[in-house]
């Protein structure tokens, strides 16, 4: 007996989707009001949605356009510092800039969070446009190194002496107002991700995928490589900037060391685990990695059996486990959670249906044909 791939009808899907959205809203509300979870849980959810946005933005370039860019940390830093500089309340500024006073040009400039966030995104996008012109003409591996380099340049500039009156140099910024409600990061992230999903589904998104599959053929199909790579790169930088801004509000204190290349590597872990070229995979893995990182803190603490202190438990073990996880995914599970697929109700439905079918077949003792599934390729 062959397994038959069945599709749910449209109404069911719409109802399920609405239920899911309602569930998310209720969950966010309950977390926000402290009905479930602790402030610690809220922090994890906040960081997860922020990383989901930045992860999807990175996947847009790396997974959908096939351009190996490693500049995300730099774009995040630009967004984070813009938001930081523009939103620190006037009263706290002398305290923040206690070593070198804040530049006169910006000392009275305070903006609402939303405006600052968009400006941060735009600055990141402008920076991406500037470096994109030379960088996007490079071959993939040179591009990786160049974007990595630019990301470090951003950090060097932020921490540099001449920038003290604006960025507060190596002291970093603090007293950045945080979110009044969990809904704010959740909504901003959702809107950002939704926009990127729409972009990917549009004709431009198809052109990105064509470039990923085969640059020569894409160009022969009339797709301007430079323009489309640039588009993807700049939009990605914009959302990385916005994500950086969210991160600044989440952390309330930032300094240039928080935007080291390790951040980009962590994002790479997220998108590789989720699947290069899958938005839902990225969101899923962002939640997994961010909460996993917190849960695994246990490994960083000293533990003992009786009086014997187990020597392997000490700070840093957690990150070793994470890097081993990345290596495992890269080497043995290359498609990650989702590969290039996206979450769909049909997928879930058939996944659930397939299990009883497999069990039944097992009971019947029908091992003869391994794959006897009728699966429409969709």
């Amino acid at each position, binding site marked *: 007996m062959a397994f038959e791939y069945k599709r749910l009808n449209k109404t069911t899907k719409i109802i399920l989707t609405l239920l899911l959205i309602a569930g998310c809203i209720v969950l966010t509300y309950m977390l926000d009001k402290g009905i479930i979870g602790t402030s610690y849980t809220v922090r994890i959810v906040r960081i997860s949605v922020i990383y989901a946005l930045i992860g999807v933005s990175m996947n847009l370039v790396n997974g959908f356009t096939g351009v190996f860019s490693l500049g995300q940390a730099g774009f995040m830093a630009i967004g984070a510092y813009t938001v930081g500089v523009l939103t620190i309340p006037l009263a706290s500024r002398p305290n923040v800039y206690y070593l070198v006073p804040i530049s006169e040009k910006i000392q009275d400039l305070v903006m609402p969070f939303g405006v600052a966030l968009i400006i941060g995104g735009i600055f990141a996008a402008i920076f991406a446009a500037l470096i994109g012109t030379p960088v996007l*003409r490079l071959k993939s591996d040179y591009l*990786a190194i160049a974007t990595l380099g630019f990301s470090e340049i951003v950090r060097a*500039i932020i921490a540099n002496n001449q920038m003290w009156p604006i960025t507060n140099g190596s002291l970093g910024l603090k007293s950045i107002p945080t979110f009044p409600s969990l809904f704010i990061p959740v909504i901003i992230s959702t809107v950002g991700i939704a926009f990127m999903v729409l972009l990917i589904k549009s004709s431009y998104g198809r052109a990105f995928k064509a470039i990923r599959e085969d640059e*020569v053929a894409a160009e022969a199909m009339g797709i301007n490589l430079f323009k489309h790579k640039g588009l993807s790169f700049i939009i990605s930088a914009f959302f990385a900037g916005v994500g950086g801004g969210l991160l600044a509000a989440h952390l309330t204190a930032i300094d240039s060391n928080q935007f080291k*290349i390790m951040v980009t590597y962590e994002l790479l872990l997220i998108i*590789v685990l989720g699947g290069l070229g899958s938005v839902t995979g990225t969101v899923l893995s962002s939640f997994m990695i961010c909460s996993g990182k917190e849960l695994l803190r246990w490994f960083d603490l000293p533990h003992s059996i009786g009086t014997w202190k187990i020597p392997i438990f000490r700070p840093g073990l957690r990150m070793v486990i994470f890097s081993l996880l990345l290596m495992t995914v890269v080497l043995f599970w290359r498609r990650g959670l989702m590969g290039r697929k996206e979450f769909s109700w049909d997928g879930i439905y058939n996944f659930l249906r397939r299990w009883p079918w497999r069990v039944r077949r097992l009971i019947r003792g029908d091992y003869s044909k391994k794959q006897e599934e009728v699966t429409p390729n969709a």
Partner: protein
Amino acid sequence: MDQVTLFQNLVTGVSLGSAYALIAIGYTMVYGILRLINFAHGDIFMMAGYFTIFAVSSFGMPWYITILFVTVVTVILGVTIEKVAYRPLRESPRMSIMISAIGVSYLLVNSATYLFTGLPRAFPQLGFLQKVYHIGDVSAPIVTFITPVVTIVILFVLLYLVNFTKIGMAMRAVSKDFEAARLMGIEINKIISITFVIGCSLAAISAILYFSPRPMVFPFSGFMPGLKCFVAAVLGGIGNIPGAVIGGFIIGLAETFLVGIFPQLTGYSDAFTFVLLIVMLLFRPTGLLGEKIAEKV
């Protein structure tokens, strides 16, 4: 800049450049054969720094045994990385193997943080290497004067190896065409392993020479030198050994003199390297000594 400072900078620059050159050779050889940026190379170099600390501080080895020990351990590390992380992905898309290289780099940095803590460790005294030596008014540790000599000697040995031995010929063949080389009966895996052995032993030697005049090693101390040396390899023409040495010298000297002449730009000295990379790639993508490779459509 007066003459003494000029010479002082020159000595420091040449020495730094030589250390860079040794790392850059590792990059260029691996890239030449596998077409892979070995992102982990800088971190292998960093690990070699820690191995040295261990050999001297924990086991109290004399300097000559230390060098041998560090080289062997680093080579084992590098070859293992190639076998475990790069070999299984050789047939997969370029991005996978690059991600794997980044993963290794991530793993090495995190392991170093775990094993040796994130705090900087003092680099030990290695025999006579750190003794300060004077030539006229210019003074520097002996290692600063030795480094360029070591690099030049190694360069000539390598050039002989690559151009006049059977292994070298096989290496050149593999770098030109993988499949054809395999069909000619060359053991690809062996050649790749040899390349990693050479690259990693140079990284080990370079680590000793580079860290000796510097006080500290910490888990990130391989990152920037790693990136810069890749830039050096690109500058000289990737895949070209003398090119990598020239590139290393250029970066080392440029960095030293930038800081020497414009002290206010110190914070940008790392950034300068990447500007150099971009300019180079735009105007002469094949590097100073590289050959053009036409892409087949």
